[in-house]
Structures are given as structure tokens and as C-alpha cells.
């Protein structure tokens, strides 16, 4: 077990290094980050001065090592537009994003799993068909369109919820629903097929043959086994929701990391974009690590020899 944990930790360090390299490299996709960030009115001297000030005139490798060694200490430089350390800006916005992702996660699991169970246990009935068609539509709906529709109907027309901003729970409802619906649909479909697969297993037939009541077969024997993959995916989903928040936040003016990132892009504030991408991706990687380790503790079959 210790060997597994150590190997998994080492792997995570490698992946985080790769993530940082990607985030760093993305800045150079256009060839010259100085020109991306430079204002059109600058003179050539001002551009060169800026280039030197940002350190873009150094060799790539030197820049990357410098970026990495500062990033480890939480120093991603200063924002170009808001004269503040980028990392502090991110930390300020992080709670809002996590709150939104958690709420969406709650919706995704709280509605998705019961819907999947309902569909699986009433297989081939009208209820099953309706739920699965609903799930397919839910999966085909772009998050940002759903967000706009919800805002239009429930905020602008009916006035039940505020259009934008963060405040009480009623501010949270629309963004969380629009962010979570795709995962609701996904979880419903996955839960359904996981249960159907488990129901075909021998131990279910054995339990039934012993005369165990059907409800108990479902809750004790089927669900426990069927939900293992669902829970694993849920962990990954949370990371996905953190990323997806970028779009939802900008629709509902939710003051989180996502909106900050989009504003940074519009303001050509590349250090902020780079830091936001690195930090979100690192959270995602660490989450995956935690899930894998938990999984190994819970399910002995996963534990490698």
C-alpha cells in the first residue's frame, strides 16, 4: 500500500509539472507574448522595456524554471491591470467558485443518481423512457444556453431569482442548476446502466433465491456495487465543474475564478490567465489523487500488487 501511495504521489508530481509546462507554454502559442499584451499606442522603446520587465527576453528554459520556482511559493507575479499579486486575486475569488461547484455537484448527485435508480428499476416503462430521453436532451444542452434560458425565464420574466451576482441562496440557484444539469444527465445514464449490469450478476439471483425482499436486494446488494463507478466519476466531475464554472460564472456575473479569468483574457492580462489555469488544473489533479487513494482504501481489487 505504501509503495502504491508513493508511486501515485510521484506520478502526481510529474503530472503537475506537465500541467505547469502546458500553462506556461500556452503563453507562447502566438510566438511573442509581449506583442499580445502590448498596447497599440506603445512606442518600440516602451515595448522593449516591457519585454525586459516581464523577463520575456530571457531563454525559454530559464523563464520556465523561474516561473516554476516562483509558482511553488504561490508567486505568479502581479496582474497587469489590477496592481495586485495574481495569486491573492485568485485566492479571493476561489471560495465563490468552490461554492458554486459544490452546489452543482449536490444537484448532479442528488437528482442524477435517484433518477438513474428509478429508470433502472422500472426498466422499459414509460418512466424509464421519459427519464432517458430527458437525460439525452440534458446532455445535448450547451451549459451557456441553459444558463441564458434560465436567466431569461426565471430571473428576467418571472423575477423569482436575481439575474446576477452572489449573495444569499437564491443567487446560487440558477448558476448551480445550469452548471449541474449536464452532470445530472450523465449521472442518471451512468447509474442506470451500472445498476442494470449489477442486476444481471449471480449474487443478485442468489439473494433473490434466498428470499430476500426485493427492496433489500436493491439497497444492500445492487446499489452498493453499482454506485462504486458512479462515485469515482463524481470526483472527476467536481474538477470538471470547477472548469465549467468559467462559462457559468461569466453568464451570471458570479464573482469567482472563472469570471476573473474571462475578464483577464479580455484585458489581455496573461499572467492572471496563466495562474488561474495552473491553479485550477492543480486542484483538479490533487482531487484525482485523493479519489484514487480513497478508492484503493475502499476497494481492495483496485490496489495493485
Amino acid at each position, binding site marked *: 500500500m505504501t509503495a502504491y501511495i508513493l508511486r501515485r504521489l510521484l506520478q502526481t508530481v510529474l503530472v503537475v509539472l506537465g500541467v505547469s509546462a502546458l500553462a506556461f507554454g500556452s503563453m507562447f502559442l502566438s510566438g511573442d507574448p509581449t506583442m499580445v499584451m502590448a498596447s497599440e499606442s506603445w512606442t518600440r522603446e516602451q515595448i522593449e522595456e516591457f519585454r525586459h520587465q516581464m523577463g520575456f527576453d530571457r531563454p525559454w528554459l530559464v523563464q520556465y524554471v523561474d516561473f516554476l520556482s516562483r509558482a511553488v511559493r504561490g508567486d505568479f507575479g502581479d496582474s497587469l491591470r489590477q496592481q495586485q499579486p495574481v495569486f491573492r486575486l485568485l485566492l479571493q475569488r476561489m471560495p465563490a467558485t468552490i461554492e458554486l461547484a459544490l452546489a452543482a455537484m449536490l444537484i448532479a448527485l442528488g437528482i442524477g443518481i435517484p433518477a438513474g435508480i428509478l429508470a433502472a428499476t422500472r426498466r422499459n416503462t414509460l418512466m424509464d423512457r421519459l427519464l432517458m430521453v430527458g437525460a439525452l436532451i440534458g446532455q445535448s444542452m450547451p451549459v451557456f*444556453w441553459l444558463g441564458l*434560458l434560465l*436567466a*431569461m425565464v426565471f430571473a428576467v420574466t418571472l423575477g423569482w431569482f436575481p439575474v446576477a451576482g452572489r449573495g444569499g441562496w437564491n443567487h446560487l440557484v440558477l448558476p448551480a442548476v445550469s452548471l449541474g444539469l449536464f452532470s445530472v444527465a450523465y449521472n442518471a445514464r451512468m447509474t442506470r446502466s451500472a445498476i442494470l449490469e449489477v442486476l444481471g450478476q449471480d449474487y443478485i439471483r442468489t439473494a433473490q433465491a434466498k428470499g430476500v425482499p426485493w427492496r433489500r436486494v436493491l439497497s444492500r446488494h445492487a446499489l452498493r456495487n453499482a454506485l462504486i463507478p458512479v462515485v469515482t466519476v463524481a470526483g472527476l466531475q467536481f474538477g470538471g465543474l470547477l472548469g465549467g464554472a468559467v462559462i457559468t460564472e461569466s453568464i451570471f456575473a458570479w464573482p469567482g475564478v472563472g469570471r476573473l479569468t474571462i475578464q483577464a483574457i479580455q484585458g489581455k492580462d496573461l499572467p492572471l490567465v496563466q495562474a488561474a489555469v495552473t491553479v485550477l488544473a492543480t486542484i483538479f489533479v490533487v482531487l484525482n489523487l485523493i479519489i484514487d487513494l480513497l478508492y484503493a482504501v475502499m476497494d481492495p481489487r483496485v490496489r495493485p500488487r
Partner: protein
Amino acid sequence: MTSRPAALPAETGPPRRRRRRWPPLAAVVALAFLAFLAVLAVLAPVIAPHPPARVAMAMRLSPPVFAGGTWTYPLGTDSLGQDLLSRIIFGARVSLLVGVCAVLISGGLGVTLGLVAGYLGGALDDVIMRIAEIQLAFPTILLYIAAMATLGPGLEKIIIVIGVVGWVSYARIERGVVLAVREQEYVTAAQAMGARTGLILRRHVLPNTMAPMIIVASFSLATTVVTEASLSFLGLGVPPSIPSWGSLLADGRDYLRQGWWITTFPGLAIMTTVLAINVIGDWLRDALDPRLRV
């Protein structure tokens, strides 16, 4: 022992009982819809009632015909008085073009890398799969945003970015299938006969891994259409001068109260397209390879 004619199927392996079956009704409807959309996209300049960029400020925010508008603008107009229907028809071009081109790029890249990784194994396999893991560790939308933020909007740019980023799922699944196919007798036979690796890969391995790749491609087409729309919505996709479903929605966002149709119809176009692709993907998966069922 009597010798058996070579044409008969071998007795090992499961009995073949594949009947020719018509696809389910939903898949037929979905295929017809996509075909219709493709025709619309190709013939857009002929079919669209107005040039997509013709501004008519006097007619701005005119409602669709069934909500008190006129037949001149069946789905209403946007904030500049441009015909929404025409812009949606032209938007289909962007969605389909980006979708198909990006899928071709990521499919080509991913299948090649997966093929090589799975068949040759060794250090190359390790390197390719580690890179795949690193990329999977990134929430994809962030990767797109980071790339498009530095590159700036552009039709070719978005095709290349989505295409290049999308290789991972093809490569991982292709590699898995290749690992199984590699051990088949026909591959061993080809190896024994001294066939070159390139030939074995092209003739014997690749064709036997196509079914799962077609399924992956159909689902990745659906995500590509959504991704392009999302990026264009954020102003990071195609430039504003080209009408795209995503950028139409970005326009509608400022007129949720006065012009519900600007938000509703382009979104419906995205959703039905993606739904149709997903229905076909589900059908292909069930028909070609039920093991991949999610």
C-alpha cells in the same frame, strides 16, 4: 480428417448471428436532420432569405412571425436588424466545418499515436500515455481558453486548437483495442510471413480497430460543436464578422428582456444538432460495440 474450404468461418469464436437490422427510428430521424443541416450549410447563400450581415437598424429587434413579426424576418431580427434565420443558416456552416475538420484532425492524430503506442509498446508507449495523462489532468475547457486567449479568435485557429487537443480519447481507446488485436492469430501470421510493421498496421491492425474509433468520433463531434459554440460565445472562437451560433447567443444575452428570440433560436439549433449527433452515437455504439456502453 477432411480439409475444410477456407471460406467457412472457423469453429472457434462465437457463432455469428448478425442480422441486417434497420437503425431505430430515432437514429433515422437524426440522420435525416443532419443531412438537412448539411444541405442548408452548403447552400446557405442560396437558401438564406437575406445576406447574413445586412444591417437594417429600422427593423432592429423585430419579433418572429408568430409573435407579431413579419414574414420578411421569419425568426425575427437581432440588435442590428440582421435577419436571425439567415444568420442561423450561415452559422450551421461554422458549426459543421469546425466539427468535421477538428474531428478529422484529432482522429488522425489520436488513432496514429494510439496505434503506434499499442503496437510498438516500450518507451514510446510510455511517453505517449504519460502525455495523455497530463492532458487529461487539465479540465479541457481551460486548455481551450488558455490557447485561444493567446492566439486570438479565428476560424482556422479554433479548428486546429480543438483538433489538436482532442487526440487523447482516440489514442487511449485505440491503444487498448490494438493491445487485443495485436495478439490475434492473423497478426502473428502476418508477422511470421515477414510483413513489414507499417503494412501490418495498415492492413491488419487498423481496419480491425475502426468500429470503436467511429463511436469515439461521433461523440467527439457532439462535444466539438458545443465547444466551438461556447468559445465563440465567450468571444474566443470565430471572429465576430462570421456568424456562428455561439456568437449569436452572445448577442442575445444583452437583450434577454426585449428579444427572447435572439437567445432561443440559435440555442435550439445547437441543441438539436448535438442531440441528433448523440442519438446517432448511441445507435452506433449499440450496433457496433455494446461493450463501450456508458
